[in-house]
């Protein structure tokens, strides 16, 4: 319960919604996110259980600029409990930012993410600070509260339902609540949802 509270606090002060941004040693993961604020793709490799390294492409859809570069994600700590797990991650990305017709400039972000889950309830929070020369600095926070209608067994298809809120200082519509459904089977995870203004949320993760 302490960890759930800590994760919730982290979310409130500051998340994406990526499930486990560090995989197993030797694992390769492709993650994609789309919502009205941004579109993003991350391909990463996990050399050990604490770190993943990869490349990310990020498009700020409302601000109309793009960011691409190398990303490292560090699993700062994992709390394994009987019937529950909590995680704290920190990530950094550095690369080039550009808009159509403009010269690429240095850019990147730093990010913290925390989560707590048991078989039926999940709390996630993420905060990101993005800076790009010529485009300024923006901050984004995401918080999620999830519920599984049933506790699926190993090898079953699993369903989670999330209430999500995302705020981006660079977005005109600053806070975007959304309802998101997550379905995963084995190493494939798909999410589809809708924001309060009818915007599409579409995320996926594939592990290899």
């Amino acid at each position, binding site marked *: 319960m302490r960890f759930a509270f800590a994760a919730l606090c982290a979310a409130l002060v500051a998340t994406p919604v990526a*499930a*486990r941004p560090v*995989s*197993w*040693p*030797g*694992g390769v993961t492709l993650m994609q996110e789309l919502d009205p604020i941004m579109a993003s793709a991350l391909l990463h490799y996990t050399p*050990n*259980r604490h770190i993943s390294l990869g490349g990310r492409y990020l498009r700020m859809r409302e601000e109309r600029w793009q960011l691409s570069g190398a990303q490292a994600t560090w699993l700062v700590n*994992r*709390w*394994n*409990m*009987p*019937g*529950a*797990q909590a995680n704290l991650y920190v990530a950094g990305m550095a690369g080039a930012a550009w808009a159509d017709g403009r010269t690429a400039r240095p850019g990147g972000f730093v990010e913290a993410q925390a989560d707590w*889950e*048991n*078989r039926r309830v999940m709390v996630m929070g993420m905060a990101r600070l993005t800076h790009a020369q010529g485009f300024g600095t923006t901050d984004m926070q995401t918080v999620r509260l999830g519920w599984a209608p049933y*506790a*699926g*067994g*190993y*090898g*079953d298809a*699993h369903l989670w339902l999330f209430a999500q809120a995302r705020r981006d200082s660079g977005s005109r519509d600053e806070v975007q609540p959304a309802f998101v459904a997550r379905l*995963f089977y*084995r*190493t494939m*995870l798909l999410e589809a949802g809708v924001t309060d203004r009818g915007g599409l949320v579409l995320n996926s*993760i594939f*592990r290899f």
Partner: protein
Amino acid sequence: MRILVVAALLVAAPLAAAPTPEAVTVKVNGLVCDFCARSIEAMMKKRGDVAGVHVDLDKGEVHLRLKADAKLDDPTLTKLIVDSGYSVTGIERKPL
């Protein structure tokens, strides 16, 4: 009679020493998510001496079927589970 006893011993000795396949139950903390628990299967499949893996999310247990010639001792097994992202609280072995 003595020849029969010696012959029986000669036949039985290799059989008694022959390795038998094992079933291993690993009790694990943090095992709540199927998507994440795939890491355990991925790590175990890297080893040639693991014949089968099953995860029981309800009980928080990993069930392994080891081959007869398996050399997967408890410290190695614990490291594999920890590298998969979980904490080991107990290991039980029994012959199949």
